[in-house]
């Protein structure tokens, strides 16, 4: 047992590294050899959609994700990658129409379409198409109501209509733009124009793309492989003239990244580290000198490996997008988690109490789960609106203000551990009870600094863009609330109005303020009387806030009842 405790961290590290390596291997080869048709090559062929050049694999994944909520498709009982689904859609539409790719949640929409099977939420084109006219009629009725006033049924029917339209667009090859520019002055073009009677495009890349699809349809894998390789070589050679940039190699890289899913793996590891931390805390009364430090060290190692994966994913996005890390809500979630980890580990270096590692892994996990839920709308690397098209401000204002959000959350999470650990356990006796409030205070100082500077930088950007430093709009006000909340805590402490416990309680309330500014302000646009697709997000936000307030109230248990403060 003695030896095991000593070697345990190394053992954990080994297992985690083995797990990561397996994932990497899968990223480079997704069991292609076992398939009738090799998909490796065609997955990496670049296409253009939403204004961005991306691998066909990414387009297929995003489309399927929007339609069905998943990146894979069930075909004959087996799970198949999106690229296989999209190729079937293009080469064998009749069979593809039987695939259950339309997710419909609302019971009224299902009964309207006479889809009585209550055990399923996904349906096929074949099942929906008999009632197509009814969908169109209902969607037209709903479209007369502004989106934010629609009820959940109207939203779902509008969404379904949108999905059916998108499906038809993709099936007829009007989306994505598959015909690559091969000469200067050419632009990406769809294989089929909007007018079905018009003569189809007949350029070299159009012919090549058609050839690949025809070959796929025949099932001749040797011919298909040859054609795909030929087309890829052609794109490679014309990259300069067609202004494809490093499109081809970036395309390959993106395919590998979507398969490795570094954020998903990292979130699993953060969860694992958190559990290790919990076990360490449980072990502390039994084996305070051997197993507790050993388990904590293991947790720290796992966090470090997860952080490396997290960083790889983040850097990959920066490379693929050519943008600073935060460009939308999705990437802000990824980034908030990423910033918290090193901050918390630095704190752990100051005071080895394990609580910070646990807070870090929990935030890392939670932020990646939030990010995952935000990615359902499709491409998370969409092009930026003209007004946001400024790498300088994205790199300064957006990054700094997001760091401010991260720090405020971190302070709040450490405070939760402080309050729960202090009131209900004896784990935080002595040094920890003194060190944690100092940490919380330090992180709040940093949060106040980052959120203030970030917010003012945002004002300066606004002044540069439309001449208004401060417009009192909901998003700006949200940022101001975080700054003011942090300043309130600091000044209350400096004035002696609150002490350790008060700082912790207010820091937990800071989670509510930050969550509100991050998400609540976006939800306001939906209107306060009818939430549709955001229902679950609103529910999650409200639940989160209630839980935080409950945790905050725990802090007001009389100090004499705090178990960690009780006499030994």
């Amino acid at each position: 047992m003695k030896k095991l405790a000593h070697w345990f961290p190394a053992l954990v590290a080994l297992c985690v590294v083995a797990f990561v390596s397996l994932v990497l291997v899968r990223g480079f080869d997704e069991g292609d050899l076992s398939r009738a048709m090799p998909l490796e090559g065609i997955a990496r062929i670049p296409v253009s959609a939403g204004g961005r050049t991306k691998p066909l694999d990414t387009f297929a994944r995003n489309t399927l994700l929007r339609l069905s909520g998943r990146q894979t498709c069930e075909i004959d009982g087996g799970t198949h990658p999106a690229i296989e689904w999209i190729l079937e859609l293009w080469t064998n539409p009749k069979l593809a129409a039987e695939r259950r790719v339309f997710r419909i949640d609302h019971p009224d929409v299902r009964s309207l379409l006479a889809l009585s099977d209550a055990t399923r939420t996904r349906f096929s084109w074949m099942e929906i198409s008999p009632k197509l006219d009814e969908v169109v009629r209902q969607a037209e009725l709903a479209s007369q109501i502004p989106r934010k006033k629609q009820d959940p049924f109207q939203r779902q029917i509008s969404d379904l209509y949108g999905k059916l339209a998108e499906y038809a667009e993709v099936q007829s090859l009007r989306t994505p733009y598959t015909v690559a520019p091969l000469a200067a002055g050419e632009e990406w073009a769809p294989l089929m124009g909007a007018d079905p009677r018009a003569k189809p495009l007949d350029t070299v890349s159009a012919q090549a793309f058609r050839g690949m699809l025809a070959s796929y349809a025949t099932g001749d894998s040797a011919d298909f492989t040859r054609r795909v390789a030929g087309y890829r070589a052609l794109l490679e050679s014309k990259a300069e003239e067609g202004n494809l940039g490093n499109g081809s190699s970036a395309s390959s890289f993106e395919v590998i990244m979507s398969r490795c899913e570094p954020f998903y793996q990292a979130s699993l590891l953060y969860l694992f580290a958190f559990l290790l931390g919990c076990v360490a805390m449980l072990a502390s009364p039994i084996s305070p000198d051997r197993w507790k430090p050993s388990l904590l060290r293991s947790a720290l190692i796992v966090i470090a490996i997860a952080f490396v994966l997290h960083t790889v994913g983040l850097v990959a996005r920066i490379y693929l997008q050519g943008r600073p890390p935060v460009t939308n809500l999705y990437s802000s979630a990824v980034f908030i988690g990423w910033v918290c980890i090193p901050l918390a580990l630095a704190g752990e270096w100051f005071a080895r109490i394990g609580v910070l590692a646990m807070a870090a892994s929990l935030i890392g996990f939670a932020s990646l789960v939030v990010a995952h839920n935000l990615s359902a709308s499709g491409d998370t690397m969409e092009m930026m609106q003209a007004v946001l098209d400024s790498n300088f401000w994205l790199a300064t204002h957006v990054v700094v203000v997001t760091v401010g959000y991260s720090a405020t959350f971190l302070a709040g999470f450490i405070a939760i551990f402080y309050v729960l650990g202090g009131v209900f356990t004896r784990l935080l006796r002595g040094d920890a009870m003194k060190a944690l409030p100092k940490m919380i205070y330090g992180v709040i100082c940093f949060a106040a600094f980052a959120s203030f500077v970030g917010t003012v930088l945002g004002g300066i950007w606004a002044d540069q863009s439309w001449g208004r430093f401060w417009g009192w709009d909901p998003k700006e006000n949200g940022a101001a609330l975080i700054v003011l909340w942090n300043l309130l805590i600091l000044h209350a402490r400096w004035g002696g109005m609150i002490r350790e416990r008060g700082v912790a309680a207010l820091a937990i309330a800071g989670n509510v303020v930050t969550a509100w500014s991050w998400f609540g302000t976006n939800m306001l646009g939906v209107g306060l009387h009818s939430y549709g697709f955001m229902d679950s997000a609103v529910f999650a936000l409200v639940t989160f806030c209630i839980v935080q307030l409950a945790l905050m109230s725990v802090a007001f248990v009389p100090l004499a009842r705090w178990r960690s403060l009780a006499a030994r």
Partner: protein
Amino acid sequence: MNAFKPLLRSLSSLRLTVVLFALSIVLILAGTLAQTEQGVWMVVERYFRSLFVLIPFQLFVPAKVLGIPGVFPFPGGLTLGVLLFVNLLAAHAVRFTLSWKRAGMIATHAGVLLLLVGEFVTGAFAKEGNMTIAEGQSANYIEDTRTSELAIIDRSDPADDLVVVVPASLLAESAQAPIASGMMPFAVRVVEWMPNARVLGPMQASKLQLARATVGTGTQVAAVAVDVATGVDGADIDTPAAYIELLHDGTSLGTYMVSPRLNAPQTVVVGAKRYDIALRFERNYRSYTVSLLDFKHDRFVGTETARNFSSLVRLSDPTERVDREVLISMNNPLRYAGETFYQASFAPDDSGTVLQVVRNPGWMLPYFSCALVALGLLVHFGARLSSSVRRKIA
């Protein structure tokens, strides 16, 4: 002097600071929630630039959960801003001494004071307007899209137009009694005033809607009231419309529909004289002229997402001997004559540009403020952090 000191001391208290922060947080939250129902400008005036505000209880609870009537009075942004300003000054007067240790905090607080001053100057003196120019056309006035006016234009003098304007506030208030003045050739009776309206084309509008106007453009297109743009929509322009009956010597000249959405003024004939009438955004004329030479609007391939837009304009101001071409694009404004011209939007079908024109004498203040605060906090927290790291290593 002795009587003054206790007052100064209580004004400088940190307790007051914390209370003011808490009140500001509540005010900002209320002012944000209010933007689900109201436009951002109205909220700014009522909540953030006022001495006090009456906040409805309903703001904090969704109406479908629980309907609560009533309002409660609350200090407005101006009051809180002034109190914070005084509190901060008093604190420095009472407690702070100039020392290296305090330097960071002093710089930070100086920056905060500057920020408060900047917002005050902006509220009091900044002017914002729009310049909408079609390609090949020019403009020598700025439209204030927050206020509109009914213009009655007498073009009989070939040298100068004679314009009489009725402010929208008057139109909105006078429901039945006709508006008349010695300067106006006819009286105006407001049949209906719409703070924000949509114009329906001949195919969209019903016969009943078209029958509301008896003469002019309103017989072909109709105006219908829509909800005012709210802050959370991100839109900040309401386009009004009105049905007005014109009266001359007690007899009706007909009912007109007027709105800034109509492209051309309408003609009214009184006796032998012709007048043009138009409801338009309030115009402020300038000595310079801006002509739009070329407007570019690029989109990402295969999408409607704007990649960038830019306006090539000719700026001419004979009084200042200025006549030059300028390219205004997103994030690259033109600064001229104390005003700044930003690429804001575009006319339908990319037929023209919309420039946002801002005059704000305090525009530089936030820049100084940001630098001061950042520097101050770096010095202050940096010194603390480095001392605790040193203690840890030692």
